[in-house]
């Protein structure tokens, strides 16, 4: 990042199928760049000082009155206050209904042959155990899938559509409080969420001044 007046705290390229996690402090910004396009970035958020106070997709959806995330969305914790807010978005729509892939859901969706493929919930479980302090399987609920396009059809069908993202599109999240962010750069190969080709993303964290 060359913009003056900003302090870069992290600048990481995260490979397809790889994890990333950090505490983004209140006032800092996390930018996620879809380097190659159509890459789903599965993300969980927790209050960094109380992991039981986690991102709540249902409260976020209900409060904004809209099923998809985009510019202006405030990602609420269970306490009803935002963890992070989307302050820039060149993609336009992000999913928070479809959850994260797992070995078990892959088997049910695609067949037994997919059981031992990479899966985001394995990545999340391993990261949760690494952070400790009560962060375990029970704490893992609904996540955000940045750059993933899952429009609902009029009769309720979930249409895992081709990505609406493209190389270089990004989303910026301003932290409203100290927030633990866990990312699984989705390895899913069985639907169009990654364009059948999981690719790296770039993650930047900066603070003003």
């Amino acid at each position, binding site marked *: 990042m060359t913009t003056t007046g900003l302090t870069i705290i992290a600048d990481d390229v995260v490979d397809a199928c790889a994890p990333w996690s950090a505490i983004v402090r209140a006032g800092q910004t996390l930018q996620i760049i879809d380097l190659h396009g159509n890459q789903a970035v599965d993300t969980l958020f927790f209050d960094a000082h109380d992991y039981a106070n986690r991102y709540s997709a*249902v*409260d976020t959806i209900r409060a904004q009155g*809209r099923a998809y995330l985009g510019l202006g969305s405030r990602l609420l914790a269970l306490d009803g206050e935002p963890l992070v807010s989307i302050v820039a978005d060149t993609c336009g729509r992000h999913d928070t*209904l*479809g959850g994260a892939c*797992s070995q*078990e859901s892959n088997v049910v969706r695609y067949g037994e042959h997919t059981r031992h493929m990479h899966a985001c919930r394995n990545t999340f479980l391993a990261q949760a155990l690494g952070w400790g302090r009560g962060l375990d399987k029970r704490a893992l*609920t609904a996540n955000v899938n940045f750059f993933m396009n899952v429009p*609902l059809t009029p009769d*309720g069908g979930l249409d895992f559509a081709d990505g609406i993202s493209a190389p270089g599109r990004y989303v910026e999240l301003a932290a409203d409080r100290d927030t633990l962010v866990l990312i699984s750069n989705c390895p899913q190969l069985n639907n169009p969420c990654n364009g059948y080709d999981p690719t790296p993303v770039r993650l930047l964290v900066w603070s003003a001044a």
Partner: protein
Amino acid sequence: LSTDSTTGARDHARSQVRTAAMRVPATPPDVEPSRLLWAESVPAGSYATRVLGRGTRLRLIDPDGGACAHLLLFRSDAPWERLNVADTVKVPWQAYLSAGHPLLSDQGRVLATVVADSSGHHDTLCGMTDAGRAKMLLAAVKHGLDIRDVAPSVSLFKGVRVADDGMLGFIGSAGPGAAVDLLIHLPMVVALVNAAHPLDPDPALTGLDVLAWRAGEQLTTPVNDDPEYLRALFNTETTWAAAQTSEAFE
């Protein structure tokens, strides 16, 4: 009755049950009374929880048109496995619940199947109000669980629909008398909260009737032949079979 002595207070306490009026849902006419396991009316704002065995048919009824049943499910023999609403909408490629829809766990198993539904007004997107979630937490705590286990729930009898632009529309109730039947596939903690839907602009909550009875014979007839449903059912059945004691087969 005087209550200024222990015996007086005891007699007064014991006398109340003879005169109290309490709603108890009637056993359905097609259910053999000896099969009945649970009959309870959950008042507006309250909750109920029970462990139900595999093969139980659970019927939820909105007799007066104002109930909203928020539901969570946990395997009673493995409570870290629970209802996963994201998988419940993703795997069947369908966000709106109706008959035939599986309620899936995070481990790729069918916890329960919606086997009958005369409402069609349900919600998998919006969760509960703070008041509803507080009641759900009480239900969870009674089973040794805690706030981390109170994952996103589904709401029955109050519906939400999503417009093309993603905006949520509250469609309310289908009217008095609607019922939803769930077939329970594994031993299950059922937690129900009868509380306002968070998008309801004018919640006039009424009681929720709960009935459950033994219906194990229904486990052998899948109500849905989607390949995803059959795979999840296979996962459930093989998990159940593998956990049985071998002595039973000797």
